[in-house]
């Protein structure tokens, strides 16, 4: 009998639980990629996850790692508490949606990044609040209809969508900031590379991967049309790019002032 090789399977860093996500929601793909990175780096016994409040609130049933359920928006703070108490060899990641991270949790993400917390933040941007039924999020596009912007997001009233990568890229400490997507095979495979880079760099500093993702139910589109809609509408506003990586540190990251040597009088 000719040999056959299993070339694609469920990662062992995923539990057997069935995902609760809506049909065609690409959260599941982001889950798979993270689990595969954890498995391939062989760090399942050293990784601690933090899930948000939002559609992925139940992700603690899907990642087969020790994991915390954070309150809405606070995952970066919870992850900071974990990072600062566990040995250096641990890996800590948060998995957050756009309402969680860019709205209620904005202070937490900005300050965790600014402190240079040695964690990886995976930010799923689907431009809407999914779990609560499709409301406008900080990343909702101009003119985009949601249950709380029924006439389309009016930028005169509530501003433009927030580009998190570009925002965090103004900070000095982050070492890896990139945006990908989890819709087409090309994007998915590239997103996995970004996640792998982020996890690999995590012990050197703060790493951030934003992944554009679909919300067929909230957008009112079929799964297939959602993939096309994301390509046509979200990608232009949220360009897919590596904004920062160790090899190419932009000016924003260069230290402005030499580290001041404070005379430590406590040594007396």
């Amino acid at each position: 009998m000719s040999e056959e090789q299993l070339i694609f399977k469920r990662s062992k860093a995923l539990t057997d639980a069935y995902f609760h996500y809506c049909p065609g929601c690409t959260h599941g793909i982001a889950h798979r990629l993270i689990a595969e990175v954890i498995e391939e780096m062989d760090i399942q016994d050293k990784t601690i996850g933090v899930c948000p409040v939002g559609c992925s609130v139940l992700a603690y049933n899907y990642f087969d790692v020790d994991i915390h359920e954070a309150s809405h928006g606070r995952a970066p703070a919870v992850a900071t508490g974990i990072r600062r108490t566990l040995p250096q060899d641990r890996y800590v990641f948060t998995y957050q949606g756009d309402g969680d991270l860019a709205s209620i949790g904005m202070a937490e993400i900005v300050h965790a990044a600014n402190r240079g917390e040695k964690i990886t933040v995976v930010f799923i941007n689907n431009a809407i609040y999914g779990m609560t039924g499709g409301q406008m999020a900080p990343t909702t596009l101009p003119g985009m209809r949601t249950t709380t912007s029924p006439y389309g997001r009016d930028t005169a009233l509530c501003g433009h969508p927030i580009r998190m990568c570009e925002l965090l890229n103004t900070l000095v400490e982050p070492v890896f900031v990139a945006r990908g997507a989890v819709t087409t095979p090309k994007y998915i495979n590239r997103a996995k590379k970004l996640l792998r880079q982020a996890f690999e760099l995590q012990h050197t500093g703060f790493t951030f991967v934003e992944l554009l993702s679909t919300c067929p139910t909230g957008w009112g589109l079929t799964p297939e049309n959602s993939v096309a809609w994301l390509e046509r509408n979200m990608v232009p506003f949220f360009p897919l790019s590596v904004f920062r990586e160790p090899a190419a540190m932009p000016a924003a990251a260069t230290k402005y002032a030499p580290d001041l040597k404070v005379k430590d009088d406590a040594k007396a």
Partner: protein
Amino acid sequence: MATAQRLLMKGTEAIAEAAIRAGCRHFFGYPITPQNEIPEYMSKRLPQVGGVYLQAESEVSASNMLYGAGGSGVRVMTSSSSPGIALMAEGFSYLCGSEIPAVVVNIMRGGPGLGDIQPSQGDYAMCTKGFGHGDKHAIVLAPSTVQEAVDLMALAFDLADQYRNPCVVMGDGLIGQMMEPVTFPEAPVKVYDKPWAATGKPPTRKHNIINSLYLDPEELERHVYHLFEKYERMRADEQRHETFMLDDAPPVVICAYGTMARIAKTAIRELRKTGVKIGLFRPITAWPFPVEALSGVVQSTKVFLAVEMSMGQMIEDVRMVVGRDRPVKFFGRPGGVIPTVEEIIHQVKLLSN
């Protein structure tokens, strides 16, 4: 610093040092008067003992760092003051729901709103009944001296670990800011086994989940019943109080805690000199309220006088015990104003008419 020494220390700093002596190596806080010396002291001392001091961007964030760190199974602490504690309410509820040990110090100040930075007891109800949403409780310890604050800090960390629940130490601006001689307890730090901690899943066990979400109502109901079994054990075993000059069963009993109890003691000594038979009942645990001890005093008492640095919040717990059997009068001053000995003496005189 040799531990047996008596040291003259400010309340806030003594509280911080006591936490370190109790094995706390991780502090997450935020500046707010009148408790600033706790984070300041921690930021200097913790690095010296291999610990972590982290100033969060807000009390909201600090309480969630506490939640994450406590989930790693280490002794963790935060401290704040009234408005800051209010911001920590959601995080506190998560600590209870996820059964995470932690110590939260509240050095109370005048309220409501921005209020002022004077000592106050205006958070009694919040700390004992309303610290965050949902059915839950936490032991609330109310020190009235700097030494007692030191002792109660050690106790708080043990109770937190023992019951897998946050524990509140509820002082006020005066206890935080005054200096008194203290000695630090010698007892070795008790170590509690924490198999539930999320430290990285070895192949030998299932993954640990630190969580308070139970979407299935029956499941959440079972979980809350489990929490309340703990709280019943706390009610049964952790009630603490002090009595002062109650041995001759005086007809007038002042109920007061924290700073107010000290002032009441002076008033009682003065009144005793003038022949008035009066004593003090002082709760040390604001929760669980010392119900047994207080009900034992009701029979011999004619009138209770609750004295608080607020508009009267502990008095409700006193009334719940005393009921209609005896009158429970109130004297208190809000806004960070501290009732004086003379004022208390005057109030007691009014009682006798």
